């Protein structure tokens, strides 16, 4: 923490404008062409916006909600907000008006900066439920021309007014900026929360800058790196990658043209530093697999041969282990002919550092990317830690751990198995919620992760088993770790989502969601006709296929002395996809166990009372907020259960 290091994001921006002035800071594809802003241009844009906000009467400590897809102007809005001593609060853009109302009201936002008409409409719909909102600023004017503009402003106009009034407002801006310290709030992020209302996590400049500095050094990130900003701006990861680390190191943030063009833009940019949740990597691999299955026999044969070699040699090369000259040569040749073009098609051709986190990733999926020579690693993080708790150093990458403690982070595992950490990134508090703050962070700064895990003695790597509160006991006292089992199930491309039950019950059962793309493709190839998701889900042959997957998972569980009790005895395939709009998943697509348990109580009962099938009606919410009902008769299937093999050696 050298004293000359900038102490805030706006200060880092000034430094970058001096140091990397002519380098690209932001790119956005618009009207089919990548538009570029240098650090110098960015500093100018941010200054204009900050002056404009002052002209609108923004006060110190005001909360400014920012809602929209990843666009440079919205990132600038966040920094401009910090520059005038206010606090940016990015929100999830797919949040429905109700969720938005709660957050806007909770932080008392006076300003909302919205990406487009859709977001403006939601804020207007919230209306009286968030009385604090005084001004709405919007980026894309389309469709908004005829709205009442008494409290509505185009962001470009605000910036222009700021520029026009710079003589008058400059002194005030200077004064405000000088007041921002290392301990001022940098950003407030609402956690999606698997239970209860979202909590506002307050992160200081110290949290963000220290974390960005440490993690950038860990992976040797540098000016000249490229990232694609496509994950929700409200998520702490995007804030760290696209603002924290980008401003610390001076690398370039690229914003895709629209949500539907992310894959094309990824290819065009070819990022060198990339983050994606496991489901994105799964999806990509599924796409590759499906397309290879449709390819000619010669291509299939070549691909299979090349991948066999890659799986054997690729990861060892990445980890710097010794590989024979002949294998090296063959890998290099295949790289020119097959891996290279494939990586390029996926947009992963230039990756130096790639991360995945948030959920467990299937070992096959992980190995696939590693074997192609993509340096994909895992990290473990939380909003409360400004992301980084543990991460995998180059050369020590495995699919079943989440790595060693990140630089500056201390780890400990409590008696109960819950993991605790302490770091410079640890959040200041939950906004207006001292009880929760006290319940999560103790006086010495240790934070409970809520996850159960253990540290491997020989390697020092952390392994996470499950959410601490989800880890329970079966009726006979055997250990029950639902997520561990769910992850094993979800590693099958045919299974999109699984929810396992069993706490205080005699045995385990599961709800399964099939993956429409993978199973649909399989159905097409095996001449199976279906008209809807529901019909496909209820097909006996699909049941048989899923049944096999469950049986395989049961066999691997039987080998595990601790978790052999978690074998799934009965399951059913749900008639609808679990959806965040119905409250069944969080916005980051994590299963909300309690809600599912309540909502589908009838199905759960049927899994345990010996029924063969059950009729059910479920309420669904459409994207526009309307509600409807779907009904179905679901079959309950029995799965093959394996006898525990390792019971006798479980002497611990």
């Amino acid at each position, binding site marked *: 923490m050298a004293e000359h290091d900038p102490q805030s994001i706006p200060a880092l921006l000034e430094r970058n404008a001096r140091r990397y002035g002519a380098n690209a800071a932001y790119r956005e594809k*618009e*009207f*089919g*062409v990548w538009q570029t802003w240098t650090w110098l241009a960015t500093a100018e844009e941010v200054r204009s916006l900050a002056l404009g906000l002052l002209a609108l009467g923004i006060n110190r400590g005001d909360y400014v909600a920012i809602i929209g897809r990843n666009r440079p102007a919205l990132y600038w809005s966040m920094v401009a907000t910090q520059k005038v001593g206010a606090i940016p609060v990015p929100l999830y853009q797919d949040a429905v008006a109700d969720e938005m109302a709660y957050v806007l009201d909770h932080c008392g936002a006076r300003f909302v900066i919205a990406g487009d008409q859709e977001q403006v409409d939601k804020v207007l719909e919230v209306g009286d439920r968030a009385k604090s909102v005084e001004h709405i600023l919007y980026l894309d004017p*389309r*469709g908004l*021309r*005829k709205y009442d503009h008494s409290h509505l402003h185009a962001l470009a106009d605000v910036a222009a007014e700021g520029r026009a009034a710079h003589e008058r407002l400059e002194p005030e801006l200077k004064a405000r900026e000088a007041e921002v310290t290392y301990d001022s709030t940098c950003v407030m992020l609402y956690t999606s929360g698997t239970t209860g209302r979202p909590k506002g996590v307050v992160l200081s400049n110290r949290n963000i800058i220290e974390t960005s500095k440490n993690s950038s050094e860990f992976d040797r990130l540098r000016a000249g790196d490229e990232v694609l900003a496509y994950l929700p701006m409200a998520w702490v990861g995007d804030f760290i990658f696209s603002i924290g680390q980008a401003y610390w190191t001076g690398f370039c943030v690229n914003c895709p*043209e*629209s949500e*539907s*063009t992310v894959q*094309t833009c990824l290819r065009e940019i070819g990022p060198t530093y990339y983050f994606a949740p496991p489901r994105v990597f799964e999806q990509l691999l599924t796409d590759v697999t499906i397309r290879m299955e449709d390819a000619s026999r010669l291509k299939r044969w070549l691909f299979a041969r090349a991948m066999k070699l890659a799986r054997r040699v690729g990861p060892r090369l990445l980890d710097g282990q010794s590989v024979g000259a002949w294998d090296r040569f063959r890998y290099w040749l295949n790289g020119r002919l097959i891996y290279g073009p494939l990586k390029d098609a996926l947009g992963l051709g230039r990756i130096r550092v790639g991360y995945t986190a948030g959920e467990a990733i299937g070992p096959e999926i992980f190995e696939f990317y590693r074997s192609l020579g993509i340096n994909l690693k895992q990290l473990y993080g939380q909003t409360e830690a400004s992301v980084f708790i543990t991460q995998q150093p180059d050369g020590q990458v495995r699919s079943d751990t989440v790595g060693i403690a990140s630089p500056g982070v201390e780890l400990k595992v409590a008696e109960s198995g819950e993991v605790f950490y302490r770091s410079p990134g640890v959040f200041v508090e939950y906004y207006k919620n001292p009880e929760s703050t006290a319940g999560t962070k103790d006086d010495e700064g240790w934070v409970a992760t809520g996850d159960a895990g253990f540290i491997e003695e020989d390697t020092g790597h952390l392994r996470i088993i499950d959410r601490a509160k989800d880890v329970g006991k079966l009726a006979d006292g055997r250990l029950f770790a639902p997520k561990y089992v769910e992850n094993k199930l979800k590693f099958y491309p045919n299974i999109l989502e699984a929810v396992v039950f069993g706490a205080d019950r005699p045995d385990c059962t599961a709800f399964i969601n099939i993956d429409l793309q993978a199973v649909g493709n399989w159905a097409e190839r095996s001449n199976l006709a279906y008209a809807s998701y529901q019909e496909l889900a209820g097909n006996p042959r699909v049941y048989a296929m899923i049944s096999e997957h469950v049986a395989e998972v049961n066999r691997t569980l039987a080998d595990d002395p601790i978790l052999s009790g978690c074998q799934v005895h009965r399951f059913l395939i749900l008639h609808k996809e679990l959806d965040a709009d119905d409250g069944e998943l969080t916005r980051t697509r994590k299963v909300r166990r309690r809600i599912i348990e309540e909502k589908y109580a009838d199905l759960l009962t049927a899994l345990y009372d010996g029924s063969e099938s059950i009729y059910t009606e479920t309420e669904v919410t459409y994207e526009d907020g309307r509600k409807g009902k779907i009904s179905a008769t679901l079959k309950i299937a029995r799965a093959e259960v394996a006898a525990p093999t390792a019971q006798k050696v479980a002497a611990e």
Partner: protein
Amino acid sequence: MNDTAVTTTPDGRTIGGVLMEMKHITLRFGGVEAIKDISFDIREGEIRAIIGPNGAGKSSMLNIISGFYVPQEGEVWFRGVKRPPMKPFQVAKLGIARTFQNIALFDGMSVLDNVMTGRLTHMSSGLFGQALWWGHAQAEEVENRAKVERIIDFLEIQNIRKTPVARLPYGLKKRVELARALAAEPSLLLLDEPMAGMNVEEKEDMSRFILDVNDEFGTTIALIEHDMGVVMDISDRVVVMDYGKKIGDGTPDEVRANQDVIDAYLGVAHD
């Protein structure tokens, strides 16, 4: 109604004077009278619908406006001037663009190229210059591409920019057709059954785009449509045709209350 009066709709759009006027149009194919003595006008900035049961002569009327058919009797007035018989390409130069009932795109070409063809009437460089991408042709292409990209952005088809049209689903093809027509920057846009064969969601999307085009670019739109619900929702005025005759003309509410229209659509009991 006064010819030059400027009115404002309840949703705040401005409707100007008469842009196009059809006077006593009669169209015959041999002995068949497809259109009998029909007169109506289209005002600047409005969404004007022509509806009617199958075979009422709607498409023929659109074809007369676009210059494809020349009526045996009657006059077509455009911007206060009587229009002499014209070829479709000459009509296009006047600023009238259209889409077709059964999609007429170039299947093998990408969406971008298809939309670019809509700019043809605005290009002056010759075949040679374009082939060599040299001098004036180069500047012209860049300028036209920029215009086309704005339309691609407007209609939210960025993700299929480079996709060959043949690979697109029906609803998207319709949207590409609209994009191509818009690329001509028409002052009058003719849409021939823009929502035929679409599902409810696609219809809603298309309705929104039609309203947005009218709102954002101030384009006058004349459309033929089967779906009464959609027409009544988005049009300012409606002409109703039946067996080649005009049986109603007015705002959606007026048309809805018109007994002849109700009879034509629901059938009449013959005693």
